[in-house]
């Protein structure tokens, strides 16, 4: 048995069908009721409209209703309903306007357009429109698509014939945008012969198969050509004898190939997209049968939404046998195929900024997408969105809030600028993390890498920036094996995460100069220098020069990287691991709770990973903030101040001074911060935060600018905001206490006594260490002096 042809009746011009006489009758029926209808626009579309209507029509009253086989659907009713829909449906925007000039409904205009152009052979009907106009018709259409669509086509043909009797072409109805779409894996026997809509990705397309629609035979004896014979469910009934009365030769008919009519056919395999696959499952596939115009309308790799009829076909054991196995093969007879742009809030697009101009496709209109965007916009309006984003980034990595803020800036990125003169300014933010071992630098790197899949994660130990080949090398002494691979070229439009940056060879590192400013990589091979794009943000982490931060050395000496390279990093974080019992304790608690799944772990309002990714990708694509005048002023003012500080005598070699590059960094950072709020304008607060980040990153507040060393007790990174306020409160409390208790220049007090006083005063627990810290702060403010355990106000 050959496959049943889909919509046989509909595919065939009416004049050839055996029931053409009956159809003509139907045409009359269908047309007549429309006349009174057009006069009365307010006719209520309801489920029983057809029933009410039929008796009113004198012609229909005496004709016996024809029912769709096996159902109680009256052909006449459906006929009338469809006609009503086609003639009178108006889009929601049109209904608002007066009926003056817009006499015709949406689909009548479409029909006219098709007829004028003579090109399109199909009328796309939005199923939502059908539902809005007549839910009953929609229900019938979905449940009995074969029958209803055949009627739909007939009604359409009649309509066309009434407008222009000479219009020859056959117009097909293509339904799309069903109310609900089915998940591919949920297609089951109850969906057979129903209209379904599935989303998926095309993975295979067969070649185009010509299929005989009408066959013409010729008599070998007399040369008489037979009437075109229609293919009936895949079978051609060869005439047993010549049709000419004079000849009537038996078994003389032969098929004339070049006079037969063929139609295109194609089989396409659709596979589930990753988001629909449950955990531990593999994607399902379904075959789609495409006809005529739909052939080649999608190619492998496209994400599409297919509307069609789910059908089953029995499997024969062998071609020669009539024995049918009990197994059925299923496929979808395609009615409409819509390409959905790659799900736009997808992880792949995270770094894809360039094609924002041409990406405004139809998908922007889909309610689904709008819905998602709406949610993101709502999120962006939250007052604490900045904090929320910070918490959502690597929630399992402890503390390091300010580092995370910097990384967020990197993910959001600034605006890349290309001037007409050809000069370009990168929008990517590069970050260097320098820190003591064991401060979860690597984990942060891995998290960022996970968030931006086009990025590359590599260890500086084994990466050559440009090499395109990978090489395994074995240390002859230790036997340690290292995989060396070229990394940067591969991470175009991603984040290139380089672990162990300090271990990178100088040669490879020097390549980074070009990457980080010009965003290209030059490769010289066989005398040809090729310049490849490497539009990447670099996130590198390194250990201090003596593997642990040495407080006695200056910051520059500790980082020990060439200043030319350092200046290319927008943010340089010093993550110093200060022996702090409080932090350690929280870390320990956190780890224990991870292992034992204690319910007491704090659940903050965090965005889950997909939302975070969607948020970032939307911001990168659609938000391009500009700098407001006030913000620009603030930028200049602060920058000048920063430059001044760097000019302190003797500091030039010991601290990282502000350069012109830094103002670019600050602009990028402020832009990124504005993006986080989905704001089109960079405001003063963004600039202020950008400066704060820059300061915090380098522990500026703790740096003694005359020596370039960092006072370990004043380090602020690694301390959460709440902890910081707690400390500030303690400092204030101590200051008050000192002011109260101690006379200026009076006798000194022991720390223990102060501690006891404080404990009496405040409800919070105060440790000796905390007090010492607070006193140290006061000492730097020159309020007290500290000698051993005795405190003296000065």
């Amino acid at each position, binding site marked *: 048995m050959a496959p049943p042809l889909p919509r046989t009746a509909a595919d065939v011009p009416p004049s050839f069908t055996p029931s053409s006489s009956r159809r003509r009758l139907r045409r009359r029926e269908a047309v007549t009721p429309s006349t009174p209808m057009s006069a009365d626009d307010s006719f209520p579309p309801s489920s029983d409209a057809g029933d009410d209507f039929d008796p009113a029509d004198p012609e229909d009253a005496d004709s016996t209703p024809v029912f769709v086989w096996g159902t109680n659907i009256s052909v006449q009713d459906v006929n009338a309903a469809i006609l009503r829909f086609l003639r009178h449906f108006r889009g929601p925007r049109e209904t608002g306007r007066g009926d003056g000039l817009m006499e015709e409904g949406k689909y009548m205009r479409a029909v006219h357009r098709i007829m004028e152009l003579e090109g399109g052979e199909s009328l796309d009907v939005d199923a939502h429109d059908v539902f809005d106009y007549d839910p009953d018709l929609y229900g019938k259409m979905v449940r009995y698509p074969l029958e209803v669509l055949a009627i739909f086509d007939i009604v359409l043909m009649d309509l066309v014939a009434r407008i222009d009797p000479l219009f020859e072409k056959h117009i097909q109805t293509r339904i799309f945008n069903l109310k609900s779409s089915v998940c591919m894996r949920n*297609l089951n026997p109850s969906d*057979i012969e129903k209209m379904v809509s599935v989303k998926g*990705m095309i993975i295979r397309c067969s070649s185009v198969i010509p299929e005989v629609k009408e066959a013409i035979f010729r008599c070998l004896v007399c040369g008489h050509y037979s009437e075109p014979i229609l293919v009936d469910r895949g079978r051609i009934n060869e005439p047993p004898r010549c049709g000419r009365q004079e000849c009537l030769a038996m078994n003389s008919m032969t098929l004339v190939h070049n006079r037969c009519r063929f139609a295109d056919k194609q*089989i396409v395999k659709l*596979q589930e997209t990753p988001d629909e696959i449950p*955990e*531990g*499952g*593999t*994607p*399902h*596939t379904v*075959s789609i049968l495409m006809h005529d115009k739909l052939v080649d309308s999608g190619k*492998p790799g496209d994400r599409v939404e297919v509307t069609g009829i789910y059908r*089953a076909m*029995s*499997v024969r*054991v*062998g*071609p020669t046998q009539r024995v*049918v*196995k*009990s197994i*059925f*093969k*299923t*496929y979808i007879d395609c009615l409409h195929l819509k390409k959905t742009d790659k799900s736009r809030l997808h992880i792949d697009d995270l770094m894809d900024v360039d094609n924002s101009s041409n990406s405004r496709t139809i998908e922007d209109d889909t309610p689904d997408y709008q819905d998602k965007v709406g949610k993101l916009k709502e999120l962006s309006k939250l007052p604490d969105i900045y904090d929320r984003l910070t918490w959502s980034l*690597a*929630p*399992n990595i402890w503390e390091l809030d300010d580092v995370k803020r910097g990384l967020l800036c990197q993910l959001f990125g600034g605006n890349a600028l290309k001037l007409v003169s050809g000069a370009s300014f990168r929008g990517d933010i590069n970050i260097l993390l320098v820190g*003591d*071992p*064991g*401060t979860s630098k690597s*984990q942060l790197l*891995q998290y960022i890498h*996970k968030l931006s899949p086009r990025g590359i994660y590599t*260890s500086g*130990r*084994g990466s050559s920036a440009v090499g395109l080949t990978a*090489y*395994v090398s*074995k*240390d002859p002494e*230790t*036997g*340690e*094996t290292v*995989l060396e691979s070229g990394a940067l070229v591969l991470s175009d439009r991603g984040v290139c995460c380089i672990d162990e940056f300090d271990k990178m060879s100088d040669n490879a590192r020097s390549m980074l100069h070009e990457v980080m400013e010009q965003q290209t990589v030059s490769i010289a091979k066989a005398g040809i220098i090729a310049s490849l794009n490497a539009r990447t943000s670099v996130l590198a982490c390194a250990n201090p020069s003596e593997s642990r931060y040495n407080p006695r050395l200056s910051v520059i000496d500790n980082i020990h990287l060439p200043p030319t390279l350092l200046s290319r990093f927008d943010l340089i974080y010093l993550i110093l691991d200060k*022996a702090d019992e409080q932090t*350690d304790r929280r870390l*320990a*608690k956190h*780890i*224990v*709770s*991870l*292992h*034992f799944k*204690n319910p007491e772990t704090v659940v903050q309002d965090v965005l889950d990973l997909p939302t975070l990714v969607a948020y970032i990708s939307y911001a990168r694509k659609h938000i391009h903030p500009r700098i407001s005048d006030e913000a620009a002023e603030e930028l200049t003012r602060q920058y000048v101040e920063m430059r001044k500080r760097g000019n302190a005598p003797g500091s030039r070699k010991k601290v990282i001074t502000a350069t012109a590059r830094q103002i670019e960094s600050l602009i990028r950072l402020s832009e990124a911060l504005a993006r986080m709020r989905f704001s089109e304008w960079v405001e003063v607060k963004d600039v202020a935060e950008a400066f704060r980040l820059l300061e915090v990153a380098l522990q500026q507040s703790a740096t003694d600018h005359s020596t370039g060393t960092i006072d370990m007790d004043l380090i602020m990174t690694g301390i959460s905001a709440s902890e910081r306020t707690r400390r500030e409160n303690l400092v204030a409390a101590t200051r008050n206490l000192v002011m109260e208790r101690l006379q200026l220049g009076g006798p000194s007090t022991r720390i223990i006594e102060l501690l006891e006083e404080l404990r009496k005063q405040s409800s919070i627990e105060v440790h000796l260490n905390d007090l010492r810290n607070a006193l140290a702060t006061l000492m730097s403010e020159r309020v007290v002096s500290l000698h051993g355990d005795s405190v003296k106000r000065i």
Partner: protein
Amino acid sequence: MVGLAYDFLANPLGAVRLAFEKAVASSPPDADPAAAFRGNDWGAVDLFRDFLFEQGGLSQVPILDASTRRWVQPNTLVRFRGMVQDMLGNELYVGAYKDGSNWRTNKFTDMAPSSMPPAFETQLWERHLFYCVPVPGQNSWAMEPSPSPGVRNMSSSTSQHGVKRGRNTEDDMDLNVSYNWDEASSNTKKQKEDESTCQSSSSSEDLANHGGDLELKNGDSSCLSCLVKIYDMPESHLKLNDVFEFIGIYTFDPELAGHEDNSDDVMYDLFEDPMAHLPPSKVPHLHCLICRKLVIQDFLPNSPVIEPLPNMIRKIRESLLLHLSAVLGNDEVAAQYLLLHLLSRIRAQVDVITVGKLSLNLTGFTRESASIFCCQLTNAVEELLPFTHVIPLTIEYLNNATLQPRKDNETGRLVAGVLQLAQGTHLTIDETRMQNGTLTSNGVENARLLKHLLEWQKVEYDFEYYKLEMAADVQLLIISEGKSNILPADLVLPFCPKSVASVNATGEELQAWRWYLATMRSLQHSSEPETSQILQDEMVAAMQEDRSLGCAGLTRWLTMAELMSASFGEKCLTLEHWQMIKELERLRKERLQ
């Protein structure tokens, strides 16, 4: 039930159909019986359940593998153990049809009677297809011997093919308790084990030498894959790479072979579907009546009945440690670490942290020591764990092997890669033969996959247009000369053998160890608030002592401490275990310097 009108073993379909007709007859006349039974059972499965588990019929059901396949008759009841390698979606079939005035069923079979009534007298039902293979890396001792055909009343001509193994059919086979076997069978088992040890040792040497081929080491003896059709169950019940036991009706039709290939029907060819590549003439089909997920304990063929008493467990632990240190040339520290490693399993995955994994990198192997100890070590692991794999990591291997499972969209099948492994598989990666060399893109990809598995316990499957990550739970042991930077393990331990000892283990010992490893590994951990408080204090103290420990180090210590307590059969971590870990880590640190 009054008298059996059918034979569950030889004619299970009879039972199914009779039950169906009974059910139809007893259903109210106005209801459509066929529709009522769509997607649910009419009591047939309960009949089988009763027969298999209440009347001890399970022991008579033959296990389907390459050796038994020769004599197992189509349309009889069989058992099959395997891993879900591919999911082929659902299949619609005529579940019920009207034969005259009676409804009949086609459930649990492929073939319909020669004539089908017209469409309105049939009911389309649905079943799910799974392609199952023997568990990759399954060691021969973990195979369950099938009851010989002699036990059953098979025709004499077929029974002579079967391997005769004295088995007592009266054994009580309860599904929930591990299988017990009588003395006689355990003797044969032992013989078999000895054979298998030799076999597997030679095969692993082969692997090490040739480096390429990673076929199932159990050879062809049971390399039989099977298309399993599951009824009345949501597809999500089975997950990819799950290990299941299916009991169902075996169908196999070599006579259909001739017809499939010369089909001239265009449509037929175009709906190229996976089934076309799995014709019933080549791949046995199994219509599953009952299935259950297997855990490692189910693969211990004749586990001794060991009361999980603390001192008993302690004893086994001691003897296992002795054995492991003998294997490792009397390196006791390495033995301790190896034990913890063998007990590790994934317990949770939170963002970037995978809780419970403990990969081990033994370094310091030279060419000579590698030739002795690698082999001993892999053999020992093979004897102890049911599913093991060895990957000889060389440039050639990385460049040529297909580690990544890949969907072949031409055939619609998932092509298994080496890394498509069942949960709880042990993977030994032998890096000692790695030399300098250039990797191709395939090699880089393979190295990346291995590293990804090591770090995240996830394997990326290639579906051509996108990749899907599948969770894995694989214990990774890396043997290398220096620290492996290609595969950075959780623990790096320089290996210091003191002497070469010959390793001998009796069958009973092996059984006890296997039982011990499987049981202790599956122990659920819990904690009391006091301990967790003490632990936190301990961790803070440790941090103060060694700043380089960091979050990763503490996580590792805690994992190890939990495994240590599990190794004593205790569910709760105590300070004692923590101290042991600290001591171990101190020893390790000494070695690293």
